[in-house]
Each structure stands twice: as structure tokens, then as C-alpha cells.
């Protein structure tokens, strides 16, 4: 029996989430005595998979089609799943992973379970713990089909190295005939995205205006962190929508979440529940965020944040 992992990359390099998916799939493979088959597209640094327990890896070259095409990708992967007869498929919770998973599930006639936060608790049929109600609760979900696709929440398993001799193979690209075609990709270069970040620094209405965001950016810079914001901040156009965190925005599952001038409304907290350590800086000791945080400073962000940034900078030198 086999388990298949979809290893995501960007500009030819495997992403951290890709390695997390391999680590997670390896743990299942070890438990069940399965072979772990990896698949990725246009990957240049596949050698790294030797350290993450992949038995066999198919690199699929997309030739002229350079952008992510959900139909072609899911078609190509489904072909491979049939060929390898994989019964468990693991994808990430990135924008692409969550886009691909449901479509692939129809093509291979499998169950699809998203927001998975742990290893299966039972097999045949598979049973896993998932988050629901935007991290306000968890559930135990069971697959009712023989095949299942699991979409793993990022940062919920971590990276686990294991050395294996991986066999490197070429997969076949199946070009889609559907009308949907990507024409352009516009991605901020060099910036850490909320989805990939270990640390996220977030600003709320307490920062008074977009002109003060250098506070957040400087702190994020010294920490190598991504920047985020509360909903009103993006609604008012102080920051882009893509930074809006919460129940109606993005989920954050970083190791460290630093909230500056964010009150901690229930809808905001729902989005950051699965972050491991939360720090709040707020001048109102009654702000609800203090109930949800691990560490906090009561005080003026305009005084505290620059000091914190300076001290972190000094520590790095």
C-alpha cells in the first residue's frame, strides 16, 4: 500500500510546507508500513527529499505551462495516484493545496478532509483530528470512502528529518482542456507570507493610521516575520486585504504571534487560535486580548515597539 504526498514548490524550490507534508506522510508510512511516493512540479532541489523520508519522487515538468494550473495539476496527480495505487493522499493547507484537494477528490473518487491537525488516530477507515468553527473547536472526522485526501493545517506537525534513499523519476504532465488559464502572477518578492511565516507581527486600529506602520514593519523585519492586521485596518485601506487575519480573513498558525494595538475581538482571536505563542501590546489592561495571550505588556505601542525592535536588533549583532 502507498501514501502520496503533494510537495509544493515556488520558483523551482520546495517550500517549507512541502517538507512538512513529506514529514507527516512519512510518519503515516512508518506506522502502516506503506511506501511514501512524492510528487511535485518543476522542482530543481528535489535532493532534499532524501532527508525527509521520501521513497520515490516524481518530478513533473510542465513545459510551456509555467503557472499553477489546478486542472492540469490535479489531472496529472490523479493519473499518478491510479498508477501507484495510493490510498492516502496528503496536501498542504496553502492556497494551492486547498484549491487542488477538493477537485482531486472528485477525480480519484475519494473523501476529502481539510484542517487536519494531527496524525490519524485510527485506520481502515481513517480517522483524524481536525479544527473547525475557525479554530474555536476540534472534531474527530472519519472517512467513509476507501481513499482519502488529507489537507494538513500548516505548522501543526512540523518538520521531522529521516534519511532514505529516494528514487527520482519523471512524471507525465496532463494538460487541461478547460477554459480557465492563468495569465499573470503578481507576488511580492522577498517578503515572508503569513502562510509560511514562523513569526507574524500584527497591527490593529490602535496604531492610528497607515503612516505608523513602519513600527510594525521594522519589528517584523528584525524578526524575519510576516506582517498582518485586523479587519477594520484592511477595510479602511490602511493595509492590503491579504493581511487581514481572523474568522473572515486568514488563519495564522505561526510559532509566535505579536499583536500591537489589537483589541482581541472574538472574530480576530478565532483566526489566531492555532498560533503557538501569543504576545499582546496594548495600552488598555482590560483589552480582551490579554485573556487569550501568553505574554503581554500594558503600555503605549508608540513607545514600546521601537524599543523592542532596537533591543532585538542589538541582540542579533
Amino acid at each position, binding site marked *: 500500500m502507498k501514501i502520496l504526498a503533494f510537495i509544493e514548490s515556488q520558483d523551482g524550490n520546495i517550500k517549507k510546507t512541502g517538507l512538512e507534508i513529506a514529514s507527516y506522510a512519512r510518519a503515516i508510512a512508518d506506522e502502516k508500513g506503506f511506501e511514501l511516493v512524492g510528487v511535485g512540479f518543476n522542482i530543481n532541489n528535489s535532493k532534499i527529499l532524501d532527508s525527509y523520508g521520501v521513497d520515490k519522487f516524481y518530478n513533473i515538468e510542465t513545459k510551456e505551462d509555467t503557472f499553477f494550473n489546478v486542472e492540469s495539476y490535479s489531472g496529472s496527480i490523479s493519473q499518478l495516484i491510479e498508477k501507484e495505487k495510493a490510498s492516502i493522499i496528503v496536501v498542504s493547507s496553502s492556497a494551492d493545496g486547498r484549491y487542488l484537494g477538493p477537485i482531486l477528490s472528485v477525480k480519484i473518487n475519494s473523501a*476529502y478532509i481539510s484542517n487536519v491537525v494531527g496524525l490519524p488516530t485510527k485506520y481502515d477507515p481513517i480517522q483524524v483530528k481536525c479544527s473547525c468553527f475557525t479554530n474555536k473547536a476540534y472534531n474527530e472526522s472519519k472517512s467513509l470512502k476507501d481513499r482519502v485526501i488529507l489537507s494538513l493545517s500548516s505548522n501543526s506537525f512540523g518538520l521531522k528529518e529521516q534519511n532514505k534513499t529516494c528514487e527520482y523519476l519523471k512524471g507525465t504532465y496532463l494538460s487541461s482542456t478547460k477554459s*480557465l488559464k492563468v495569465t499573470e502572477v503578481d507576488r511580492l518578492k522577498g517578503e515572508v507570507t503569513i502562510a*509560511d511565516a514562523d*513569526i507574524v507581527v500584527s497591527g490593529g486600529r490602535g496604531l492610528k493610521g497607515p503612516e505608523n506602520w513602519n513600527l510594525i514593519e521594522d519589528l517584523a523585519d528584525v524578526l524575519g516575520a510576516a506582517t498582518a492586521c485586523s479587519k477594520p485596518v484592511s477595510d479602511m485601506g490602511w493595509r492590503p486585504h491579504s493581511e487581514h487575519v481572523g474568522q*473572515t480573513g486568514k488563519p495564522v498558525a505561526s510559532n509566535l504571534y505579536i499583536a500591537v494595538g489589537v483589541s482581541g475581538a472574538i472574530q480576530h482571536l478565532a483566526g489566531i487560535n492555532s498560533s503557538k505563542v501569543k504576545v499582546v501590546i496594548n495600552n488598555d489592561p482590560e483589552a480582551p486580548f490579554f485573556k487569550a495571550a501568553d*505574554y*503581554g505588556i500594558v503600555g503605549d505601542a508608540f513607545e514600546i515597539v521601537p524599543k*523592542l525592535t532596537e533591543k532585538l536588533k542589538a541582540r542579533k549583532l
Partner: protein
Amino acid sequence: MNILVCISCVPDTTSKINFKEGNSSFDSQGVQFVINPNDEFGLTRAIWLQQKSGAKVTVVTVGDESCDPILIKCLAIGADQALRVNIQAKDGFQVASVLSTICKDKNYDLIITGRESIDYNGGMVGGILATLCEMPYLANCIHLEIDGKNVDLQREIDGGKESLKASLPVVIGAQKGLVEEKDLIIPNMRGIMQARQKPLEVISPNEIKPATEILTFKKPDEKGPVKLVDSDNIDELIKLLEIEAKVL
């Protein structure tokens, strides 16, 4: 043009979540239900197309009669007609399969779902529905312009956005950005009165088996109290994050 907007009824975002029957099911007692926020962005976009080019907008939900007030609200916002599929929704696969049987003989040009529902966060109904109907699907849709059969679209991706072209019919997963928060339509008196005259059809098709089953629910463990650090002792905070929390 015929547009179908799929509406999921979800607990209001301020709701405290509780479970009953030995944590085996969601306790809806005292919970206010609302239109799933992502679906509301999609519905607003559909109403704009109706106002601009006379598109006909149908809203549909899979659920029992407790969803009717939500459908009536959609009619008051401006949808032309509502459809309720009288089945207790069990999972995203089942919902999508049921919806696909409706879509197959109706020839919708545009089907709008939400990026995800904020209750089970499956993020799957749109993609499964589209694939069952052999239509293309665009997730996390933040831009949609239609010119004849040609569609210009944008998808939010991690760290940026992607522009795409397609031709009708298409299915999208709507989210904030497709329209802005301030654009959401609040029903006025006229809309509310008109909603009463608009058709709300209830159909009861054959059950379709779900692909997954939820066995139990659990709330997160209570966390300990916050550790407060004095505002002139920032070094202490750095030390705690480094040594105790091990996140620096």
C-alpha cells in the same frame, strides 16, 4: 445570464460554540444564524450583475426549514428567487453532490460559492461542485468581470494574486475583495416587502451519502493566565520568549 449563489447558514461570528449529546453534535440553542460572510460578498457581486445586465439571481441552500429566514434575507437583498434543498447537510461532498444534480439541468452561466463556510471551514463545496458539473473552478476569487462569454478573474494566492481568463460557465469561491465590506447590501424596507412576493421553492431530492462523518467535537483546552511584563522591562519579555517559550 443565470446566476446561482450557494448560501451556507452559519453561526454568527460572535457565537460561543457549544456541543450536545456527549459532544457528538453542535448545539444551536441560543445561536444566531447568518449568511456565511464569504457568500454575502458573492451575493453582492451577483446583485451588481443583475443590476447592470439583467442577470437572474437564484440563491440556494441545502438545509432544513431553520434556514428559511436566511434565504428570505437574500431575497430582501435582491435575489430573484430562492431554492431550499430539504436535506440535513452532513458534509461538503454531500452538499456539492446534491447541488450538482440541480445545476445539471438548469444551465447556470455562473455559480458562486464562498471560499469556505466559517463553521466547518471545509473549503470544498465549490471545487467539488464544479468538477462534478465539469465546469472550471476558481478558488479565493477577488475579481470577476464578465464581457459576453469572456471572464476576467483574480485569485488571492499566498503572498500575492494571480490573474486569469476563462469563458462562461464558471464556478467561483468568493471572498472579501470581490466586493468590499462597505459595498455589502443591507436590505431596506422595500426589499423586505418585495421578498415576501418572491418564490421560495423547497425540494426534497433523494439522499446522497456523505464521504465523511464527524464522530465527536471538542473545545480547545483552557489556557493559563497571561504573563504580564512591565513596560520598562522589555529585556524580560525577550528573555521569556527566548528561554521559556523558545520562539526566538
